[in-house]
């Protein structure tokens, strides 16, 4: 084999290796940095790229896609001295491959440590209650601080989320009890309020009822009084009329009325269908005595002769009922 043979073979191998070193295909989602003699010169974007072999070298292959890193769990002491365990996630994207490659060493670690320290400072300035209830605010404050801090590295932190905030177990238990007590309190208050309301309503109802009853009684009394007034009036009128009649006539007419009433009352007494024996008070004897008086009146009226004028007057004042039969005691 001559020297030219070996040269030809070596030349082909060199060409192949050179081409291999000079042609670079960068996949989408990545940027490659190029270093000439170890110094950064340019960035290759996705697609086919040529570099000058022997001079240029691919430095870092930087991922330009948004990436997520988890922030490891750590203990944070809040402003009110509660120790909570916190972890989270951060999303970032590299926008400048050169800066992300050379401005910072160990990019992920730098972001993690930066975020962890900022979680401590943000949450350390808040009370436990605020820490548990203002997660959005914490996320936003973290994002502002961390994003500003990483901007010299050519990347942007798009989002930092606190994943879990775990207070110590005894604190969780106490919080549970507090919540339960709060609800029991609310329930008790509601119940008492309900009772109060119902009592008031019931009393109101009773009061209303009594008022109505009293009003009814009042009304009834008014009407009773009226009735009594009216009957008294009627009585008075009747009496007046009788006395007027008497004044015009003889006193005997009055006696006649009284006798009539007596007899009628006595008749009623005797007419009672199941009354065979009539018990009369002693006083009644004097009534019987009066019957004799009535007989006298009758005799005086009809038996004896009187002046024609008097007779005429009697006739007008006493209804003509014929001769009054002598009063008799009830037969039965």
């Amino acid at each position, binding site marked *: *084999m001559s020297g030219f043979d070996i040269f030809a073979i070596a030349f082909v191998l060199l060409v192949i290796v050179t081409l291999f070193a000079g042609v670079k295909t960068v996949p989408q*989602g990545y940027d490659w940095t190029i270093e000439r003699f170890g110094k950064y010169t340019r960035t290759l974007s996705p*697609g086919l790229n040529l570099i000058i072999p022997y001079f240029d070298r691919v430095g870092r292959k930087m991922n330009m896609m948004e990436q997520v890193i988890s922030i490891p769990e750590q203990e944070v002491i809040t402003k009110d001295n509660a120790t909570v365990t916190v972890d989270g996630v951060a999303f970032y994207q590299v926008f400048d491959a050169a800066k992300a490659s050379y401005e910072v060493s160990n990019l992920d670690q730098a972001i993690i440590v930066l975020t962890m320290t900022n979680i401590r400072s943000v949450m350390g300035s808040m009370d436990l209650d605020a820490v548990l209830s203002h997660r959005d605010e914490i996320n936003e404050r973290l994002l502002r601080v961390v994003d500003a801090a990483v901007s010299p590295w*050519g990347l942007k932190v798009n*989002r930092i989320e606190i994943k879990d905030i775990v207070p110590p177990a005894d604190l969780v238990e106490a919080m549970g009890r507090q919540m339960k007590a709060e609800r029991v309190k609310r329930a008790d208050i509601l119940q008492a309020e309900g009772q109060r309301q119902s009592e008031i309503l019931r009393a109101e109802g009773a009061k209303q009822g009594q008022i109505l009853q009293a009003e009814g009684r009042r009304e009834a009394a008014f009407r009773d009084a009226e009735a009594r007034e009216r009957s008294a009036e009627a009585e008075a009128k009747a009496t007046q009329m009788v006395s007027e009649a008497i004044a015009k006539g003889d006193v005997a007419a009055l006696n006649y009325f009284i006798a009539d009433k007596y007899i009628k009352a006595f008749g009623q007494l005797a007419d009672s269908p199941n009354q065979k024996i009539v018990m009369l008070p002693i006083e009644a004897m004097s009534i019987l005595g009066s019957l004799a008086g009535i007989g006298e009146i009758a005799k005086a009226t009809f038996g004896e002769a009187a002046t024609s004028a008097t007779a005429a007057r009697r006739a007008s004042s006493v209804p003509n009922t014929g001769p009054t039969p002598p009063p008799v005691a009830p037969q039965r």
Partner: protein
Amino acid sequence: MAEMFSTLGTWNWLIFGFILMALELLAPGIFLFWLGLAALLVGLLSFAVNPSWQTQILMFAVFAVAAVPAWRHFARSEGSRSLSNPFLNRRTEALIGREFTLEKPIVDGTGTVRIDDTIWRVAGPDAPAGSRVKVVQADGASLTVAAA
């Protein structure tokens, strides 16, 4: 070895070219492909003129090197065609021309706007919070704005 090249000669190049192209499919990188093309070209030329094997091998090397500018020309014209998603992995460039409301005032050249549920720090002339700004330039992660 020399005998093998000289006797198989022409067919060798064509077989070599096909093998290179097949390898390209297995390990993509647009690199073995045009080595394969160069090999096929040498093979076809060898049918016509039948040069010595050393010449053939040098022709292969020359074709391989010559393919670089030719391919580059092709790649450029390919790259200049409009892509279906030109802003893939270039989020800031997609923001150029859009208008936003300043969340924090621009003081000493920097302020913040809220874009797509995250906070972007922007550079530009001083302006109070709430004023409308327009993104005029994007350089990496930093946006430059002007009053809209």
